[in-house]
């Protein structure tokens, strides 16, 4: 069996038993990146020598008992909006092209303390604004299942890296679905944790009240193992939450007999592709076989989620992105007359069109005279949405639904109509607005050979239930072959 076919937890076991080493695993990923990434462009930055040096250090650390956890020695990719000390962190934007942080994000410190090997930084939509990874200033990423299609976004590079065997695990971030939607498009497992579970320190902010870092993996067990490493309160992020239930690996099992699953009727009505609908129905059937009860219900307010989300996210983005002004870091325009001209030109030349669009919308909805009508109104709608979910979770343990209305669209078909692209986030943004955890698990492959995942949403702090349910689905679905595994089987 090829080393790349192993899951992250299997690999770590083998390394622990000395059947292979962290250096061999890192070298296998570097080799796979060399083979695949010219075509896929999942990575923006890989320093092969530094990776192998770090892998050697990790092998020594495992030998001497410094690294003993269930992911020690595993190579991992990190989305390029998460700060890495001494390694460029660009947010896939020209404005941060040369930015090299002098500190690690808390999430990066945690993966290093767990003995993982950081492979490099992955491509994304510029400042995580987009659903296809096509708004990256450094070129798009291709879907490993079919390079004519997008990997989804904004964590498209991270999901493509895992789906192509270039990485065993990846970190993504999710503000409106940016882990869950590309996980569905790329046939990998990803979770957006409950807001506050993973520290946002060192995550370059898009919309602070919605942003969460989360794991992307080949299966549920790997995802649970990585979330156990990432989760924990951090004094550097005052919104991080103190939790004691962060051992997600031991919480796993697949007994579903007590579980109540709810499917919002409106999720299966308008604008959803038949094969996505079939996936959700298939998952529902599997849950019933596992002994869970499955019921349809009216969640309500679904049509209000996208407009409320774009008002709130854009407002927060316009405020967060004020810091990019050409003074302290990042791009500075070379042709400016005076200070204010320098701010404006640096920003106008440094930001791409989608980022400018959201900054302008956000500036408008926060401006005097419009603040109440747009921004406060959206926050009131957000409160109503939270109430709707509270009602739903008084009846159900898990909400089952799609992660996106379609499988991965073709490259070049999404950006010409922004509103239409925004609407494809309809099933994911509500979890961010209500702070809920949401997990995507691959379910089936459609007639075009593209994967489709289903989304499980839980109440705040109910990640363990999501993992339990995802284990159940994986068991009935059977083994899941990623594209690079299929190729090797055929050869």
């Amino acid at each position: 069996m090829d080393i790349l076919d192993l899951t992250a937890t299997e690999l770590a076991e083998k390394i622990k038993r000395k059947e292979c080493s962290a250096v061999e695993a890192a070298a296998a990923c570097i080799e796979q990146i060399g083979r695949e990434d010219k075509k896929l462009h999942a990575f923006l930055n890989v320093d092969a020598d530094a990776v192998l040096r770090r892998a050697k250090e990790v092998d020594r650390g495992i030998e001497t008992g410094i690294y003993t956890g269930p992911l020690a020695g595993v190579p991992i990719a990190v989305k390029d909006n998460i700060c890495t000390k001494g390694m460029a962190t660009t947010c896939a934007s020209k404005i941060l092209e040369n930015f090299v942080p002098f500190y690690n994000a808390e999430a990066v410190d945690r993966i290093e303390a767990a003995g993982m090997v950081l492979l490099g930084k992955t491509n994304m939509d510029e400042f995580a604004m987009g659903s296809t990874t096509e708004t990256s200033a450094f070129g798009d990423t291709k879907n490993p299942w079919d390079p004519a299609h997008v990997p989804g976004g904004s964590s498209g590079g991270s999901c493509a890296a895992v789906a192509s065997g270039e990485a065993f695990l990846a970190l993504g971030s999710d503000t409106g679905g940016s882990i869950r939607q590309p996980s569905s498009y790329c046939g990998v497992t990803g979770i957006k944790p409950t807001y506050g579970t993973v520290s946002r320190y060192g995550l370059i902010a898009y919309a602070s009240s919605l942003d969460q870092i989360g794991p992307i993996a080949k299966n549920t067990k790997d995802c649970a193992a990585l979330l156990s490493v990432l989760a924990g309160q951090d004094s550097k992020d005052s919104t991080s939450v103190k939790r004691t239930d962060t051992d997600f690996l031991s919480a796993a099992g697949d007994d579903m007999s007590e579980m109540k699953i709810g499917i919002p009727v409106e999720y299966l009505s308008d604008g959803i592709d038949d094969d996505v609908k079939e996936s959700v129905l298939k998952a529902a059937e599997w849950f019933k076989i596992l002994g869970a009860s499955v019921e349809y219900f009216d969640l309500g307010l679904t049509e209000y989620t996208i407009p409320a989300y774009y008002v709130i996210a854009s407002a927060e983005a316009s405020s967060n992105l004020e810091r990019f002004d050409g003074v302290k870091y990042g791009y500075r325009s070379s042709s400016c007359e005076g200070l204010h001209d320098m701010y404006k030109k640096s920003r106008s030349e440094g930001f791409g069109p989608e980022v400018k669009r959201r900054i302008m919308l956000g500036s408008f909805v926060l401006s005097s005279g419009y603040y109440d009508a747009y921004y406060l109104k959206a926050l009131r709608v957000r409160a109503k949405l939270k109430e709707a979910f509270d009602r739903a979770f008084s009846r159900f343990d898990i909400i089952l639904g799609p992660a996106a209305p379609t499988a991965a669209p073709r490259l070049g078909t999404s950006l010409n109509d922004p509103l239409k692209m925004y609407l494809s986030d309809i099933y994911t943004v509500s979890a961010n607005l209500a702070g809920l955890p949401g997990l995507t698990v691959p379910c089936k492959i459609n007639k075009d050979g593209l994967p489709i995942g289903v989304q499980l949403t839980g109440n705040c702090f109910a990640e363990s239930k999501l993992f339990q349910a995802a284990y159940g689905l994986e068991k009935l679905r059977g083994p899941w072959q990623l594209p690079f595994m299929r190729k090797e089987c055929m050869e």
Partner: protein
Amino acid sequence: MAEKITDKTMDEIEILAKLVLTKAEKEKAKAEMQQMLDYVDMLDRLDTENTEPLTHIFPISNVFREDVEMDSTSADELLENAPQKKDGMFLVPKSIG
């Protein structure tokens, strides 16, 4: 009906957003923003009269820590990424004429 985005509104947005747009960019931005606001208008159909705005999902107010001395970032590190610097400070173009 959503607020009508006029040329004057676009000028104001440009100032608030600290951006300079070409005439063509401004026309396009105006049309896109109008389309988005017409869509956002849908929120008015939902009665939120007695609902408080939700800014944060958990009821966190002030988060304090002990008032103890901690390491802080050195000026040299902070200046590492500066586009221009001089004598340990950020250098910017002249701000008054």
